[in-house]
């Protein structure tokens, strides 16, 4: 999971790479100003990794275009020379989707930061480098906003959101990036301009927009996105409910849904996480509870009133030991402040943490938490848990010290165990962070060889030479074979078909 060997030790490789680098720079210099081409190590160092910092590769060349024409020209040059291209937004991705290729070009799209809000059609047309939150800020004067709100929304870009099909805490009710994007404009690998989707609600032919969103930059390069804006709810209120044991908290989540309620957000934190974030932001969380739920309602004041009453009744019946409803916006934001700071708070209690992102059916939440508790014992590492409980998306944060090789190794096994358990419980290895390079091994567990071959077929339909972000998402047959062997060898998965609780 962690630590990828990117050093290529074939004799003569460095010489060949240096030669390749010179040729690539020379060809790019015909289509770009010199200042937009970086290749010295000190200049390219910031591009060595995304937010998955354990994986680093020094890029051969980094380009910083500021027009679509330049993007097209760069792609044409790279396509002709068969140089891999890795598109990059803000570099906030958590799965190494923007990890550079050792003989490739990093296409930084940070300069594409223009946007237009159309309050009449309730859409925003934004360049790929615009930050997620900037869209909602620009739309706010019209009473509109862009719904998907990944936790990194102050920094992450819409281009990256499209690549990852990002979610957020409100996607149970408002959907993922996929549900909120109308049109993507960009370029195919050979530099030809292309548009997926349209300003209408559908387009003729196959729904290519669906396959491009979430394709982790492997099918096309996105330069401009038209997103839906929705009217800002007049009011939002949040319930904070405490539970004495995780089983009743898990059952409460199922019960809310069973009663026909679709909360605007439904989040769970376990006791260890609650303690960590409360120390970090002082959100007045109930530190005695085994788990707390945040359950939000939004809409017109009448709707919210009706729904909050209903939610309270359901949560009480599910055995909540304490319930608090936000009185005003300040208190609502305080409730959320802890949840939104879960990751930095974990950084405060451990030198390093590894964030998992699997999704399981809601009804298995408590079972999963129990399994993680046993894994803490087995791997001798602590794990704190935040869940997008409403949609079963888990973010266990495994705490470890990267300086300690043995701990790091146990952390890898711990993470793999969580992902494999999630698949066995009927879930998936990644809910919103993407596969990137981080979860390549886990893809071997979730998909058959034929399914992985079909993914590769999709990739080649768009990019026959496999130049766009190669090596991500789809593991090779060889890698999967090695992964299977490694597990049997190390004894972590002696009988993969058996339950391991």
């Amino acid at each position, binding site marked *: 999971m962690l630590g990828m060997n990117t050093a290529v030790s074939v004799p003569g490789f460095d010489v060949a790479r240096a030669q390749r680098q010179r040729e690539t720079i020379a060809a790019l210099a015909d289509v770009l100003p010199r200042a937009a081409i970086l290749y010295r190590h000190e200049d390219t160092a910031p591009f060595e990794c995304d937010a998955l910092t354990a994986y680093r590769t020094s890029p051969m060349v980094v380009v910083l275009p500021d027009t679509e024409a330049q993007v097209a020209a760069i792609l044409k040059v790279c396509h002709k020379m068969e140089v891999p291209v890795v598109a990059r937004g803000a570099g906030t991705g958590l799965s190494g989707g923007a990890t550079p290729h050792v003989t490739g070009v990093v296409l930084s799209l940070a300069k594409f930061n223009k946007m237009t809000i159309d309050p009449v*059609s309730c859409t925003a047309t934004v360049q790929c480098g615009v930050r997620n939150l900037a869209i909602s800020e620009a739309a706010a004067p019209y009473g509109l906003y862009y719904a998907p709100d990944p936790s990194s929304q102050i920094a992450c870009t819409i281009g990256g959101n499209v690549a990852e099909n990002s979610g957020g805490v409100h996607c149970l009710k408002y959907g993922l990036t996929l549900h909120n994007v109308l049109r993507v404009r960009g370029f195919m690998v050979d530099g030809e301009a292309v548009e997926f989707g349209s300003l209408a609600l*559908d387009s003729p*032919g196959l729904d290519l927009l669906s396959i491009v969103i*979430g394709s982790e930059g492997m099918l096309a390069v996105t330069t401009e996105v038209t997103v839906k804006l929705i*009217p800002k709810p007049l009011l939002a209120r949040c319930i904070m409910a405490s539970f004495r044991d995780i089983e009743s908290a898990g059952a409460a989540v199922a019960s809310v849904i069973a009663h026909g309620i679709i909360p605007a957000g439904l989040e769970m934190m376990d006791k260890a996480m609650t303690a960590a974030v409360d120390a970090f932001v002082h959100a007045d969380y109930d530190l005695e509870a085994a788990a707390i739920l945040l359950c939000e309602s939004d*809409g017109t004041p009448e709707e919210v009133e009706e729904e909050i009453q209903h939610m309270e009744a359901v949560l009480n019946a599910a055995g909540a030991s304490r319930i608090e409803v936000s009185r005003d916006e300040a208190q609502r934001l305080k409730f959320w402040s802890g949840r939104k700071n879960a990751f930095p708070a974990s950084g405060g209690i451990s030198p390093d943490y590894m964030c998992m992102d699997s999704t399981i059916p809601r009804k298995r939440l408590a079972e999963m938490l129990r399994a993680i508790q046993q894994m803490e014992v087995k791997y001798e590492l602590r794990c704190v848990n935040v869940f997008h409980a409403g949609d079963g998306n888990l973010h266990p944060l495994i705490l470890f010290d990267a300086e300690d090789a043995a701990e790091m190794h146990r952390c890898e096994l711990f993470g793999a165990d969580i992902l494999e358990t999630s698949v066995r419980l009927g*879930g998936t*290895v990644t809910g919103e962070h993407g596969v990137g390079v981080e979860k390549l091994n886990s893809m071997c567990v979730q998909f058959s060889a034929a399914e992985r071959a079909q993914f590769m077929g999709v990739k080649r339909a768009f990019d026959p030479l496999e130049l766009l972000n190669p090596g991500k998402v789809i593991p090779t047959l060889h890698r999967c074979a090695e992964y299977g062997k490694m597990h049997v060898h190390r004894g972590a998965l002696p009988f993969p078909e058996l339950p391991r609780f």
Partner: protein
Amino acid sequence: MSAQDPALARLIDQVSSACEQRTPLDICGGGTKRFYGELPAGAPLDVKPLSGVTCYEPTELVVTARAGTPLRDLEAALQEHGQCLPFEPPRFAPGGTVGGMVAAGLSGPARRALGSVRDHVLGVTLLNGRAELLTFGGQVTKNVAGYDVSRLMVGSLGILGVICDVSLKVLPMSVAMATLSFEWDEARALETLCRWGAQPLPINATAWHRGLLRIRLSGARAAVAAACQRLGGERLETSAAHAWWLSVRDQSDEFFFIGEEILARGESLWRLSVPAVTAELNLSGEQFIEWGGAQRWWRTTAEPAAVRDAAARVGGHATLMKGADRSSGVFAPISPVLMRAHQGLKQAFDPARIFNPGRLYQGL
């Protein structure tokens, strides 16, 4: 889904031998949408025996059904638990199946408010053109493991593979509903819908036809009551309103009826999908406008090129739903770069080109 299942085993056999012999297959469910798309060709591959809701847990808001499951069986199962398919799939005749619903990808009146079929598909199991049984997506809402192949199947008209089962996100039925009616001309209706669309109102469906705008509100009791008061108009009686929206969904309203005689006169029914804010489109003929202006059904004798042009000029596209003259194609042509991606995908999923050849576009 197991290949040991007899109905599935038979399908795998049929696809294998079609693949070996390179004989085209015409994938058939209930046969209720054979009029949609280019003409079907090939030996029939009956998916109906692959039937039944295989997994349904109301608290997960997810249902999995095999492709041949009658839509009415699926909806009855959901209804027992107060849930529904929010995208209101249309049925043009009794007997439609879940597989056909996904392959056609058509959504009903609530589409603009609640999303389309594609928005609610979470996973599929399919047979590709090499007779391999593949599963993509799953039964959870948030899932970004690999490309979103399951949603690519929606509206693909079977050209990429045989859909074997589908997992769908479902929603609780709405607590309260009301239908309001306004006697407004097209311009006023479109202009008002556009304005209301930017406000937090529980508008769930809209339809304008012959000077009458109807709006369906849906949501919490208090929200629907407040919106009724604010928007005005005349409130329709509940059961009459329900029946009327069904007639829109299933196109059993008189507007949509085009018999042989009318076809012979050169009249066609077109579906124009355009940005909702598009002002009046001055085509000859009669229209029925849904989805807040984003879906405009058009009965006209105008030349296909004129209809296509009218849609394309405003950033939309036109589909020929019913018409005698199909010589200019059913679906709007796509750009060469998109067509290359289509051809690449066809090659990737169905290299022997056995599935529904030509049903979506010539050559696919």
